[in-house]
């Protein structure tokens, strides 16, 4: 059974199809998929070319959390709640930015929903505009590199911690470079009643400026440098962290992506590189990443 594709229009090397397929597979197709407007929606749900093998709904950009909450409530009211898991697939723009209100409402009321954010770190569907998930220094069309500006300034919002702060039973970060780990997390999430939040790092080949065949390698480097720590919370308690034997310097991750290339030439680049290394070091400290 193909739960997602073939026939979707994602770019060769796109990160998120690995996550979508992996999540639905590990839940044995017992999924009602709720999708916010974005790249995933556009590549999979054109009228007449739907590629979803599970029931699917797309409403708006910023309301997936509430739509999922409504579906979950309806299933409960109609005694159909054992039929399927309600699973949101939303991009980082829909999650971190415009849809954070409905996601917060969903988590606050603790609706029994697995919310999966595929994080490609910008509005990639519309051509790489910055989101609050965009890391500092990234060159996007709305934070362009110029004489005075080194790309995005300011930090990436920590949505996993925001989910944890809502008191949800389960929250985790994951990466498409570790698909088994991601699938295990989805399966674990499904064991809890209430709102679950999983954020999966998924490169965008065009927005990040990487070779399609390097998708997995690049996302792996994000983890190995400490910039994208893989963590897992149950009832607010950090229960698991992916340890790193030999944490790599952030430059290794940054230099192979076009969005960060300017940092190695720009006047303010050094400062941003230091900031990024500091973020990785802080992550290592906070989560005890170094084995």
């Amino acid at each position, binding site marked *: 059974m193909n739960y997602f594709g073939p026939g979707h229009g994602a770019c060769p090397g796109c990160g998120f199809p690995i996550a979508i397929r992996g999540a639905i597979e590990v839940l044995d*197709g*017992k*999924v*009602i998929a*709720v999708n916010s407007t974005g790249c995933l*929606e*556009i590549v999979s*749900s*054109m*009228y*007449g070319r*739907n590629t*979803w*093998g*599970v*029931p*699917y*709904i*797309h*409403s*708006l950009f*910023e*309301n997936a*959390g*509430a*739509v*999922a*909450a*409504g*579906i*979950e*409530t*309806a*299933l*409960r*009211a*109609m*005694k*159909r709640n054992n*039929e*399927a898991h309600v699973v949101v697939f939303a991009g980082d723009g829909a999650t971190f930015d415009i849809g954070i*209100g*409905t996601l*917060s*409402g969903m988590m*606050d*009321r603790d609706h029994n929903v697995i919310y999966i954010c595929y994080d490609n770190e910008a509005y990639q569907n519309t051509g790489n505009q910055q989101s609050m998930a965009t890391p500092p220094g990234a060159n996007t069309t709305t934070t362009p590199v110029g004489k005075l500006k080194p790309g995005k300034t300011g930090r990436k919002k920590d949505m996993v911690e925001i989910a944890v702060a809502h008191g949800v039973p389960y929250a985790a970060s994951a990466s498409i470079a570790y698909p088994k780990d991601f699938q295990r997390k989805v399966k674990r999430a499904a064991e809890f009643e209430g709102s679950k939040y999983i954020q999966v790092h998924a490169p965008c080949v065009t927005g990040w400026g990487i070779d399609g065949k390097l998708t997995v390698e690049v996302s792996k480097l994000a983890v190995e440098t400490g910039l994208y720590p893989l963590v897992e919370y149950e009832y607010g308690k950090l229960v698991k962290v992916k340890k790193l034997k030999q944490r790599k310097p952030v430059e290794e991750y940054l230099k192979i992506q076009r969005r960060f290339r300017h940092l190695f030439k720009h006047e303010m680049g050094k400062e941003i590189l230091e900031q990024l290394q500091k973020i990785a070091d802080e992550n290592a400290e906070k989560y005890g990443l170094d084995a």
Partner: protein
Amino acid sequence: MRKVVRGFYAIAEAVRLSKPNVIAAYPITPQTEIVENLAEMYANGELGDAEYVTAESEFGAASMVLGASAAGARAFTATSSQGLLLMSEVLYNAAGMRLPIVLVIANRSVSAPLSIWNDIQDSISIRDAGIIQLYVESNQEAHDMIPLAFKVAENRDVLLPFMVCVDGFKLTHAYEPVDLLDQETVDKFLPPYNPVVKLDVNNPVAMGCYAPPPYYMEFRVAMEYAMERASKVMLQEFKKWYKLTGRDWGGHVVAENCEDAEVVVVAMGSVVPLVREVISRMRQDGKRVGMLKIRTYRPFPSREIRKALKNAGKIIVIERALSIGAEPPVTADVKSALFGLNSEVYPVVTGLGGRDIPRELVERIIEDVMKGKIKPEKRYEGLNEFEEVIP
């Protein structure tokens, strides 16, 4: 059972009797008491298997009823003013997705300036969303139209959201005697919701697909066709309602004393009983005046209006909303219905933001129109003299 109740209770009770599966709402004056009553019923186990959820915003409430409806639930929400404007993106979407959500709008003016008081600018502003709009004159009519709204919205020939518009405070907070329906009567009229499609793992469908130019237009025109069919379905259901309850609310419009009238006043909502009273007094004085009550605003009953007003030379439209920079909304629609006839239309903008519409005002306007003292053009009544402050 006839009881003196407040509007919000009459509305909440009718919602309960309609057996929704999901109610999601967010409080806003003057709608709040409707959902408070429903929340209380829920807390006391009086809503059957229904789930009641307080959302994080009206936007969230509308999105929740959208999701619930897509899952095959009968879903209800209520709001007012800013809440409706905040919902509007979702409501356009729900209509396009053909989800038969029912809403009650406790009509209230929109900000700025902030005002919690009544006019109908809120619901009028989203008249183009593809949502059926019905305006009521009393709490009895509001009570009766809620089961009917579900029935019409859920009809396979319709499948559009349905908005019952009830004047905030003037009706929602007013005590009126209401013949409260019983469960048996409502059950006889309103069968359980049987959705054509729903989100179901055993029969997967994709809802809310995007449509590129070769497909988009057909979806939107299909909504027009559905709205046209809704017009017929509503008339059938109005008749069935009369047969069942003995209460005849008429069709899309109700023409009173219009046959020989020289002047007809067109009114919508809670101002209707006032206009009716004025007309009936003037009739006693031998004046040939009538009233046309518009109940259904979308689908707009052009044919019925043209028929009812074909003999009236002079038509006054009581406007409680604006389309700033253009003809007031109801006037524009009435004029288009009358196109080609020799009628003179007098748009009277009044009662905005809860300003009182006194009987004397309505009487004076009618007298002035009869005597040819005013011109058939937009005028503002009950307006204080004021100086525009241009900084």
